[in-house]
């Protein structure tokens, strides 16, 4: 078991290094000079050289990468070209909002998906099963940015129940656990939950239907257990897999929320990415993508490590 953990951890190191290299190389994908955003068009060669040296762009590429990686490890992701603030600070301000949105969406996705998946799996082949399967495939097929627009049209424009955008009244960024703030997260969280709900429903449905067809369930029925007691056994058997599905989904939600955050102007990392792209702020783009990708790698690592602990049947060596 510990051999597996060590191997899994050791494997994550080269992946992290490669991910960082890929993030770093984004600068070289960008057309033109990365400094064109800050330099005046008529800057003299001296000023250009000076600023290049300031940003470390006068050194050879591998040296730049090592220096960048060295700084990134200590938490220094450079300075945002657009705002002039430190990239780490900008990400620090935004990542909490994204994490909260993704957690809310995961909780919705996990609860609704598990519930739907269980009843569909339990009554496998029935009309309920078919309806749930239709909901599940709609959840994974729906363009969620469009779902967000539709929800805004219904709940903000027509019914005027919930705010259409932002994360607090008057553009405030301070979060508090009261209705004035929570009501802002409801629509974006539901929107973001569409895909994980569909995926969790499908996996749980398959798991429950599969578990019910196992011999031990037939034995339980023969033993005369009530349906409720049998259901408890089925839940116990499918829960670890369902948890690992939603764990991986949380990573996708964190990183994939750019569209939803754009629709709702939710001040998270997605909106930060959007700003970085359209202001051609490469350090901010690099930093945000690096942090989100490492979060994703870390979360997958965590799921892989937790899964055998939660479910002793999975023995990895």
């Amino acid at each position: 078991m510990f051999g597996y953990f060590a191997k899994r951890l050791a494997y994550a190191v080269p992946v992290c290094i490669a991910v960082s290299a890929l993030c770093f190389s984004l600068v070289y994908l960008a057309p033109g000079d990365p400094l064109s955003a800050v330099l005046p068009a008529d800057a003299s060669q001296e000023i250009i050289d000076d600023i290049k040296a300031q940003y470390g762009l006068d050194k050879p590429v591998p040296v730049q990468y090592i220096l960048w990686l060295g700084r990134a490890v200590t938490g220094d992701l450079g300075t945002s070209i657009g705002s002039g603030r430190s990239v780490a600070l900008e990400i620090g301000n935004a990542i909490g909002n994204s994490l909260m949105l993704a957690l809310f969406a995961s909780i919705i996705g996990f609860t609704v998906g598990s519930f739907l998946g269980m009843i569909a799996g339990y009554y496998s082949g029935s009309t309920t099963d078919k309806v749930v399967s239709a909901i599940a495939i709609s959840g994974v097929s729906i363009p969620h940015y469009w779902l967000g627009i539709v929800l805004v049209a219904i709940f903000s424009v027509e019914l005027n129940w919930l705010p259409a955008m932002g994360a607090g009244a008057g553009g405030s960024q301070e979060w508090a656990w009261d209705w004035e703030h929570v009501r802002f997260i409801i629509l974006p969280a539901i929107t973001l939950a569409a895909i994980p709900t569909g995926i969790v429903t499908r996996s749980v449905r398959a798991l429950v239907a599969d578990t019910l067809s196992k011999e031990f369930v037939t034995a339980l029925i023969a033993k005369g257990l009530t349906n409720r007691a049998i259901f408890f056994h089925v839940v116990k058997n499918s829960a670890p897999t369902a948890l690992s599905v939603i764990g991986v989904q949380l990573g996708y939600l964190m990183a994939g929320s750019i569209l939803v955050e754009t629709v709702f102007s939710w001040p998270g990392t997605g909106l930060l990415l959007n700003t970085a792209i359209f202001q051609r702020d490469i350090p901010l783009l690099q930093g945000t993508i690096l942090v989100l990708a490492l979060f994703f790698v870390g979360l997958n690592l965590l799921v892989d490590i937790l899964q055998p602990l939660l479910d002793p049947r999975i023995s990895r060596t």
Partner: protein
Amino acid sequence: MIASKEKDRPVVPPEVVSRGYWHGVISRLLRDKVSVACMIILGAIVLSAIFAPLIAPGDPTVGSVLERLKPIGEPGYLLGTDELGRDMLTRLLYGGRMSLITGVVPVTLALIIGGALGTIAGYVGGWTNAVIMRTIDVIFAFPSVLLAVAISGALGAGLENMLLALTIVLIPPIVRISESVTTQVRELDFVDAARASGAGSLTIIRAHILGNILGPIFVYSSSLLSVSIILASGLSFIGLGAKPPTPEWGLMLNTLRSAIYTQPVISALPGVMIFIVSLASNLLSDGLRSAMDVQR
């Protein structure tokens, strides 16, 4: 000459001729009502996009300021008009061209490139396999949406950049599937038999492996179609793909956002099209999977 060749061929009694695997797949697919409905819907949308210039009532880029945001059913505008007074029906028909192309092209390119890389990795094995698969692992370490946004964001807005980004995102999953099915098929006895009888690698791949792996790879790729269409329209939605005034469903959703307070139904119409195409292609892909009896 052809005639004499045909004479030399042994005569096969017609009742022994196998109807073939693909014949079975198609007849099973046609028996599935959902799949047939999806084929009809997708076919209608594709045809209406191709023949948009013939059937559209207006010009997709010409509008009138006086006719802005007319409601659905207004005389002359079956589906109303958009924020610049352009006919919505016309723009939805033309929009399908760009949206379908940006959805299909990346999947096709990824299928060719990813399929080739995966087959090579699976067949050759050893170091080649390690190099290809570990590179793919790194790309896999990025969630797909993030990688697509990162690449097209760094390259800058534009259609070609977006197509490139989507292709790169879709290659890794196809490589993984192709590698795993190729590895399975390579271990089978008939491949050993072919090698023992002196067939070269290329012949073995062409004659014995491709036929057995194309089905699963193709089914898997078809399930990526909906991902590609949603992502492509999504990138256009945030301004990384098609540029105004090009009619494209995702971009139309974006430019119509200002109209949500006056004409909420019209502002949601382009998304309905994306949803229908994505749902139909997902259902058709599922139908194809069960018709081909491919285990995931």
